[in-house]
C-alpha cells in the first residue's frame, strides 16, 4: 500500500505538466502565497533573531547567561522536559503497539482518548492539576501533611508538560505502524524470536524515523509549553520559571532584549525541529522510492 502510493505520487507530479491557468495567474498566486508566508512566518522569525542580536553578540550572551534567573529558567526547562518526553515516548510506543497490532473492543475509544489533550485548553490542563494537587485540591492536604509539594514546584511542571504533550509520539507512530503491517513481526515470532528481540531487531528499526520525529516534536512542544505551566508554576523567579514563563516576565518588565534572547533559543529549537522533520521526510521518500523501484524490477 505504501509503495503504490509513492508511485502514484511520482506519476502525479510528472503528469501535471499542463495547467489550465494562464501564466500570470500562476505567478500572481505564487507571489501572494510567498507574501502570506513572509508576513505571517518568515519576517516574525527573522525579527526574533534581529531583536535578540541587535545590540551585538556580547549583549546577547550577557542577557542569556548573565542573569541568574534566566540561567535558572534555561536549566529548569532542560530538567522538566526529559521526564515528560520519556513518559510520553514509552506510552506512545505501547499504545501504538496495542492499537495497530491487535483488535479488541474499545479500540476506537482508546484512540479518541489519546486525542483528548488536543481538545483541552492548556490553561484548563493546568487547572486540572491544581484541582488534584493544589492546596484546596483532592490530594493537596495529604501531600502537604507529608511534606511534599507538587503544585508551584518541579513535579507540577512535569505533570502539566506531560499532559499537554501526551498525544504527540502516539499520533506520529500509529499511522507509521499501521502502514508497516505485522507480517515481518509474525515471521520473526514464527522463527523463534522472543518479545525483546522482536522489538529491538524488527519493530524499532522499522519505526525509528517516525519515532524520532515524534520525540523531537514532543520535545519542542514540551519546551515551549506555556499555558498549563503558567497556571501551576506560581512564577517564583529563580525557582519555578521555565523559559517561556521567563519570556513573559522579562516582557512585563520591559526588558525586550532579554526576552528576545530567551525567545531566540526557543525559535532556534523550533527551526531545528522543522529541519530534522524535512530531512526525515526526504529520507523516507528516498526509501519508499527505492523499494518501489525494487518492486517494479522484480
Amino acid at each position, binding site marked *: 500500500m505504501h509503495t503504490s502510493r509513492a508511485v502514484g*505520487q511520482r506519476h*502525479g507530479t510528472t*503528469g501535471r505538466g*499542463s495547467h*489550465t491557468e494562464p501564466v500570470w495567474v500562476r505567478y500572481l*498566486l*505564487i507571489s*501572494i*502565497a*510567498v507574501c*502570506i*508566508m513572509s508576513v*505571517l*512566518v*518568515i*519576517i*516574525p522569525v527573522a*525579527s526574533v533573531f534581529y531583536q535578540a542580536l541587535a545590540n551585538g553578540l556580547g549583549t546577547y550572551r550577557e542577557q542569556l547567561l548573565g542573569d541568574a534567573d534566566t540561567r535558572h529558567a534555561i536549566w529548569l526547562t532542560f530538567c522538566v522536559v526529559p521526564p515528560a518526553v520519556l513518559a510520553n515516548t514509552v506510552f506512545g510506543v*505501547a*499504545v501504538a*503497539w*496495542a492499537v495497530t*497490532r*491487535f*483488535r*479488541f*473492543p*474499545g*479500540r*476506537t*475509544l*482508546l484512540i*479518541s*482518548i489519546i486525542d*483528548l489533550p488536543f*481538545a483541552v*485548553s492548556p*490553561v*484548563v490542563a493546568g*487547572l*486540572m492539576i491544581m*484541582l*488534584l494537587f493544589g492546596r*484546596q*485540591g483532592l490530594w493537596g492536604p495529604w501531600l502537604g501533611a507529608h511534606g511534599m509539594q507538587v503544585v508551584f514546584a518541579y513535579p507540577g511542571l512535569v505533570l502539566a508538560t506531560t*499532559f499537554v504533550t*501526551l498525544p504527540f509520539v502516539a499520533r506520529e507512530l500509529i499511522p507509521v505502524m499501521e502502514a508497516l503491517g505485522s507480517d515481518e513481526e509474525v515471521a520473526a*515470532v514464527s522463527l523463534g524470536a522472543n518479545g525483546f528481540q*522482536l522489538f529491538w531487531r524488527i519493530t524499532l528499526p522499522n519505526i525509528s524515523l517516525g519515532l524520532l520525529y515524534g520525540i523531537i516534536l514532543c520535545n519542542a*512542544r514540551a519546551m*515551549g*509549553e*506555556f499555558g498549563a505551566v503558567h497556571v501551576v508554576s506560581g512564577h517564583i523567579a529563580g525557582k519555578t520559571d521555565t523559559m517561556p514563563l521567563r*519570556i513573559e516576565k522579562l*516582557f512585563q518588565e520591559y526588558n525586550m532584549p532579554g526576552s528576545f534572547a530567551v525567545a531566540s533559543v*526557543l525559535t532556534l529549537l*523550533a*527551526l531545528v525541529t*522543522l529541519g530534522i*522533520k524535512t530531512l526525515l521526510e526526504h529520507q523516507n521518500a528516498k526509501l519508499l522510492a527505492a523499494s518501489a523501484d525494487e518492486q517494479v524490477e522484480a
Partner: protein
Amino acid sequence: MKCYYHRDSDAVGICKSCCKGLCVACAADVGNGLACRNQCEKRVRSVNALMDRWIRAATFADRVARGLQQAFLALGAFVRPAVSLFSGWSSLSMQSNRRILPGFRISLGISIGYLCLMVILPLLVCVYKVTTLTSSQFFNAVWTERARSAYFITLSTSFYASVIDLGLGFLLAWVLVRYEFPGKRILDSLVDLPFALPTAVAGLVYSSLYSKNGWFGKVLVPMGIKFDGTNAGIVLVLVFIGLPFVVRTLQPVLESMDGDVEEAAASMGANRWQIIWRVLVPPLAPAMWTGFALTFARAMGEYGSVVFISSNKPYAEEIVPVLIVSRLEEFAEAEATGIAMVMLLMSFSLLMLINYLEWRSSRYAH
C-alpha cells in the same frame, strides 16, 4: 373446449380454482381471472381478499422498515463515534495476532493505566469539582456579564481567524501542490512552524512587530490600523497559530485530485469561477470543514500568544482562558472550574463534529 356445466356451449375460460372449462353463463370474473359461478367463486374471492390484505400489510411494513432504516442512518451519523467505539469484535485475522505476537496485555495495560491516570482522572476531578457547586452558584459563576463577554470574544475571534485561515490555507495548499517554483520545499516546511514554535514566542514577536515602534507597526499605527492590544490582534495571532491545520488537511486531498477534470470542464467552456465552485470545491468541502473545525478548536483554547498581544481588559479583550487564569489568581477555584467546564463541553462537541466530518468525508471519498 366446451363448458363443464353446459356441454353444448363453448368455454370462454378456465376456473382459477378447479381448472374446469367455463361458458359465459357460468364464468364469474373475480378480478384476476375466472371462477365457477356459485361454486369456486366464493373461495377464490376470499383468497384474493386475504392476499390483498397481506400485500398491503407487507408494503406498509416495508415502508416502515425503510423509514426506520433511514432514521437509524441519520441517528448513526451522529452517534457513530460512540457506536463505533466498541467495534473491533470482527476481523478475526487480527484477533489471532493476539496468540502470535507478544505484548498484548502489557502494552494495553500500560496504555490504559497511563491514560486513566493522566487524562481520565483529571477530567473526572473537574466534573467532581463542578458538582460541589449548587446549580445557582454554578450559574452565577458561568453566566456573569464578564464571562458572557469572554465567551463571545473567544468564539468570535476564533471564528474570524478560522475563516481567514481557510482562505489563506486554501491558497497556500493550492500553490504548494500545483506549482513548481524555487524555494517551494522551504516554504512547505515553514508551514509547520506555527506548530513547532512556542506560543509565548509567537505572542512576543507579534506584539513587538505591530507595536508603535515595530517593523509593521511603524507603518500601520499612523494609518490608524492597530493590532497591539485590540481584538484584531487576537485574530491575527490565532490566524498564525491555526495556519498549518488547514494547509495540512487540504494538501493530501488536493494531491489526490488530478487536473483532468478541470481541463475537461475548461474545454467544455466553463469559466474560472465555475471551475472553482463546481469542480474544485465539492470534493474538497469535507477536508475544508475538518480544517476549519481543527483551527477553531485550537484557537478557542489558545492562551500563550493571545496574552501577549491582547490588553486582556475584562469586557473588551478578555478571552476565556485569560478569565480562567484571573479567577484562579483570585483563589476562586470552583468558579474557574465551572467556566472551564463550559469550555470543555464546547471543545468536545467540536471534536465530535470533526470525527463526524472525517467519517463522512471518508464515506463519500470513493
